[in-house]
């Protein structure tokens, strides 16, 4: 069912590589504000002539004006089961992770597959600061200033074929370095996936840092995905493998509990998780809860990716 839906994505809907490249030049040359403004029409025109949605949540979707979460909180309250299931475990145990040397294998539907050293992978790019909301499926949220590179810009270098419809990601699997993997709470290694249009979306980044410094190990060093309109579990950490595929890849939480976690996992206040209402969230550092926004406040940028899809069914 999901696969058929993916086939319905016309090639014309996928952001063409020229555009991605042009955007990169724009970003370099003109700064974020201008780039954001220039991008808005490009993003909106995907939705077959529909009127643009109501007022945007952010003046610049790449940098929310909301107060960033305290660095201390963002680095001591983490879901990273590779280091234990308690939210304090990642900080306690992630010191054993060696983040250099680190290589990433890129395979599947690409013209230039191969394994590449992380530093070589990152060298041609300049990390950009993105201040994004992060919404966990457990109904809490943070605001994180990431440093990262648009995933699309990286994927383009490996020349995805026209058959590439999905992107699958895999976390390092090494119980020596990741002690949480010694217990079988999840089916290791952790895997995640995106549709190709989601992967190519300008909001989607591979992060290498946050708060102006290198990624702390407990936050997914040395390379993690950040997809701000999806629940946090989609943003896979400590990536060692990226595979482009024709069919929808398996994803860890979906495999664990298919009726609780879907493949799309877009932030959606109207679809409750069996254990948590998704209508509201607690921003870390605040006592009162705030309403959760559709697509985590990025509806204007991404809603058109899901035109015609029943998001109650495909949660």
């Amino acid at each position: 069912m999901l696969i058929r839906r993916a086939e319905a994505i016309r090639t014309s809907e996928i952001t063409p590589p020229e555009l991605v490249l042009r955007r990169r030049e724009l970003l370099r040359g003109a700064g974020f504000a201008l780039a954001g403004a220039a991008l808005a029409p490009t993003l909106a025109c995907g939705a077959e002539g529909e009127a643009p949605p109501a007022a945007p949540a952010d003046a610049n979707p790449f940098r929310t004006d909301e107060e960033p979460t305290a660095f201390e909180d963002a680095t001591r309250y983490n879901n990273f089961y590779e280091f234990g299931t308690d939210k304090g475990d990642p900080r306690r145990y992630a010191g054993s992770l060696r983040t250099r040397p680190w290589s990433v294998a890129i395979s599947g539907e690409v013209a230039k597959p191969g394994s590449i050293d992380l530093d070589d992978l990152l060298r041609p790019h300049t990390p950009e600061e993105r201040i994004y909301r992060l919404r966990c499926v457990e109904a809490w949220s943070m605001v994180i200033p990431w440093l990262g590179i648009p995933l699309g810009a990286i994927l383009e270098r490996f020349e995805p074929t026209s058959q590439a419809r999905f992107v699958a990601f895999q976390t390092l699997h090494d119980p020596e370095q990741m002690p949480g993997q010694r217990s079988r709470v999840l089916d290791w290694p952790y895997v995640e996936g995106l549709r190709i249009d989601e992967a190519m979306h300008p909001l989607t980044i591979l992060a290498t840092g946050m708060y102006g410094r290198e990624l702390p190990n407990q936050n997914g060093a040395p390379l993690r995905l950040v997809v701000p309109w999806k629940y946090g579990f989609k943003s896979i950490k400590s990536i060692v493998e990226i595979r482009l595929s024709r069919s929808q890849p398996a994803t860890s939480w979906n495999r664990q509990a298919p009726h609780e976690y879907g493949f799309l996992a877009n932030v959606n206040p109207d679809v409750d998780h069996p254990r948590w209402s998704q209508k509201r969230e607690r921003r870390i550092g605040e006592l009162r809860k705030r309403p959760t926004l559709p697509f985590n406040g990025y509806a204007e940028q991404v809603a058109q990716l899901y035109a015609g899809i029943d998001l109650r069914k495909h949660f």
Partner: protein
Amino acid sequence: MTPTRRARALQALAIGAGTLPLVSLCAAALGDGLGANPVEYVTHVTGGWALRFLLASLAVTPLRRTFGWSWLAPLRRTLGLIAFAYACAHYLIYLGLEHFFDWRLIAEDVLKRRYVWAGFTAFCCLVPLAATSTRAMVRRLGRRWVALHRLVYAAAALAVIHFCWLVKADLREPLLYAALLALLLGARLWFRLAGSRRGRPARDGAQSRLSGIG
């Protein structure tokens, strides 16, 4: 030590142990020990101790009967009431800091989410037990007191189920409590069967129950 003094010392010890988690929570609150999500942390800590003291209260009778430690008996009520105090704190935090006393949201939560329902029902089971835990009530209710206080088995089972249903993937801790509860309930069943095989009623009758909840 006279039996009375020993009983008093034991009570004092139990009450001391019962206040320790509260004291450590208060100390943590004064510093920065409640972490990034204090409401979640305090909810988990109070819920965890409610369950642990409830299981401790249920352990009194099997220990007393297995080892003949009759002096343990008064602890059953004390531990049960400590469990109830933590359950009250847990419940009040849920009502006040999770839902800010929004009764519509709370009702929806109880009806829609099975782990909330299990926890809510467990708490409801504990209320009449705490209310009838005084000596006067024990005397007034007589045999009905014994029947009423069997509710504690339901409360403990529901509390364990509540924990099992609320975790995402790591069932190790809730299953540990489930095993402990199975052991404690199994011991009761064993005593009952062993008692009836010898042609006399189970010893776990009204006499030993007079001293408290559990």
